[in-house]
C-alpha cells in the first residue's frame, strides 16, 4: 500500500553542513507515526520540508501520492499542522483565532465547535489567548491544526512545556484521532516514553540521518536480553572464552566491568560457568539483563544526546 506521506532522500544543508540527510520517511494510512530523536536531530527541519516551509536541498516529498512541490496547496488542504511552538493571535480570543483559520480554510461553524470541544477549550473560548496558560495555548494550536479534520495531522513536539496531566490529556487525544476521525498522525518528540505509549510506527533520527524506521513491535524485538557475567579477572575470562569459541564483550557497568553475551540458552550459560571455574576463575555473578526500549534508543541516538 502506498504511504500517505513519503520522503525520498530528503536533505537540507545549511552552509556546509547537512541538517537532514537522505531521510526516507514512510507514514501509512491510520498510523500514529512517532518521529523520534534528540533535540537538534533534524526533526523540525524535516517536518518543515514536508510542509513546504523550508525548501529541501535535495530529495522530494509525496503526500497522498502527489508530489508536494507541484501540488503543495492541494495537499495542504488535507493536512493539519502544528510546528514548534503554537501559533496564535494573542489579542484575539480562542474562538476568534479559530475563526481566522475557519475563514482561511472555508470551513463550516460546526468544525469550530467540535475542535473546541475535542481540545476542551469550549469554556475558555471567549478569553483572549494572551491570558491562556501554556497548556491552553498548546491545545488551541492543536485545535487549529484539527479544525478541518484533515486526513493527515502533523504535530511537532505537541507536549512541549506541558505538565504531566497535560501530557496525558494530549496523549489520549492523539490516540483517539485515527479511530474517531480516520486521521493519520505524524508526531515528533524527543521523549521516548511519550511516543512509546501512542505510536504504532516509529522513525528514529539522529544528526539528520534516519537510524530506524518500522513498527514499534520491530523495535521492541530488538530488546533481547543479555547475559552479564562478573568474574574475579574479567580480562583473563574474556581471553579464555574467545579462545573457546564464544563471543563475549567487555562491558563497563556501574559496579565495574563485566562480560556481556547476547541472549544465551541456560545450558550454554552453565557450560561457560563450568569452563571458567575449570580454568581457576571464580565466577562472582551471573545475571540476565533485559534491554529496555530506552536502552535501544539511547544506543541508537547516543547517550550524550538529550533524549529522555
Amino acid at each position, binding site marked *: 500500500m502506498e504511504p500517505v506521506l513519503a520522503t525520498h532522500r530528503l536533505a537540507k544543508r545549511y552552509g556546509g553542513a547537512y541538517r537532514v540527510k537522505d531521510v526516507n520517511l514512510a507514514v501509512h494510512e491510520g498510523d500514529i507515526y512517532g518521529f523520534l530523536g534528540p533535540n537538534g536531530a533534524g526533526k523540525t527541519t524535516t517536518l*518543515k520540508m514536508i*510542509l*513546504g*516551509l*523550508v*525548501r529541501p536541498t535535495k530529495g522530494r516529498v509525496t503526500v497522498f501520492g502527489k508530489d508536494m512541490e507541484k501540488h503543495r*496547496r*492541494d495537499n*495542504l*488542504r488535507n*493536512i493539519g*499542522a502544528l*510546528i*514548534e*511552538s*503554537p*501559533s*496564535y*493571535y*494573542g*489579542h*484575539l480570543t480562542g474562538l*476568534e483565532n479559530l*475563526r*481566522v*483559520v475557519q*475563514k*482561511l*480554510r472555508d470551513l463550516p461553524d460546526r468544525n469550530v465547535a467540535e475542535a473546541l470541544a475535542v481540545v476542551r477549550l469550549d469554556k475558555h473560548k471567549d478569553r*483572549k489567548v494572551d491570558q491562556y496558560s501554556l497548556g491552553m495555548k498548546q491545545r488551541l494550536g492543536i485545535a*487549529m491544526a484539527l479544525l478541518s479534520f484533515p486526513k493527515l495531522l502533523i504535530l511537532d513536539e505537541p507536549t512541549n512545556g506541558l505538565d504531566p496531566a497535560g501530557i496525558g490529556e494530549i496523549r489520549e487525544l492523539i490516540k483517539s484521532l485515527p479511530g474517531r476521525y480516520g486521521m493519520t498522525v505524524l508526531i515528533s518528540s524527543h521523549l521516548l516514553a511519550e511516543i512509546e505509549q501512542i505510536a504504532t510506527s516509529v522513525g528514529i533520527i539522529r544528526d539528520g540521518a534516519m537510524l530506524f524506521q518500522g513498527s514499534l513491535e520491530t523495535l521492541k524485538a530488538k530488546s533481547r536480553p543479555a547475559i552479564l557475567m562478573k568474574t574475579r579477572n574479567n580480562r583473563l575470562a574474556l581471553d579464555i572464552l574467545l579462545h573457546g569459541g564464544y563471543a563475549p564483550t567487555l562491558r563497563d557497568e556501574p559496579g565495574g566491568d563485566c562480560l556481556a553475551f547476547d541472549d544465551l540458552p541456560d545450558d550454554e550459560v552453565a557450560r561457560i560457568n563450568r569452563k571458567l571455574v575449570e580454568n581457576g576463575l571464580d565466577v562472582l555473578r551471573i545475571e540476565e539483563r533485559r534491554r529496555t526500549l530506552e536502552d535501544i534508543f539511547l544506543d541508537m541516538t547516543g547517550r550524550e544526546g538529550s533524549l529522555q
Partner: protein
Amino acid sequence: MKAVALELYKLRRKRLLPMTVLFLGVEIAWAFAAAARSMARQSGPAGWEPVLAALASMNGLFLPILTAVCVSRICDMEHKGNTWKLLYTLSVRRSGLYAAKFAAAAAVMLAACLVQTAAVAVFGISRGFGPPLPFALLARFFAGAALPTLVIIALQQWVSMAAKNQTFALALGMIGGFIGLAADFLPQGAGAFFAWAYYTGLSPVVVDYGAAAAGTGPPLFTVTDAGASLAGMAWLSAAGAILCLAGNLHVSRREV
C-alpha cells in the same frame, strides 16, 4: 476581498481606528489652525488654497509616521504570534497574503486621506469659501496624498514583514516624516528620489514665501498645472509597483 476582510478582522482590539482618528484629528486641527492664521494675515477674500497647502505640508510629517504605525500593526501581529508558519500551512497563497495585507493597510490609509479631503470641504464651507466646491482641486489633493501613501505602504510593508523587530520599520517612518517635512528644502531634484517628499511635490497648491520672508507681503498661494504632476505620479507609481513586487517576492520566498 475575503482575505482583506480577514486582515481587518485580525485587527480587532488593536485600537488602530482610534489611533488613526486621533492622529488625523491632531494633524487636521493643526493644519486648519495654520491655514486660519495665514488667511488672517492676508487681505482680500479667503480661499481653498492656504488650507490645501497647509494640510499637504502637514501630510509630509504625519502620514509617513501614521502609515508606518498602521502597517507595523498589521504585520507585527504575525511576528508576535509566530503565525507565519500557521498561515503558510493553511493552503494560503503567500503572495495573496502579502497582497491582502497591503490592501488592508491601503484601505485604512486611503480612508484617512478621504477623511482629510472631506474635512477640507467642510472647513471651506464653514468658512464661506464656496459653493461651488472645487472638486478638481480636492481630487488632486486626495491623489497627492494617496499616491505617496500607497508607495510608502509598499516600502513599510516590506520592512515590517522582513524584520521581526518593528523598531526598524517605525524608525523608517520617523525618518520619512522628517524627509516629508523638510521636502521643500531638499536640493532641486533630490526630492524626486524620496517618496515622502511627494506630499508637497504633488500638492495642487504651491506656496511662495519670498514676499513674506522679505517682509513685503503675505505668502503667495498658486494652483499648479495638473499636467505638471503627471511625470511625478508616473514615477511614483512605477516605484510603488516595483516595491510591491520585490517585497512580495522576497517575503514569499523566505523560509520560516
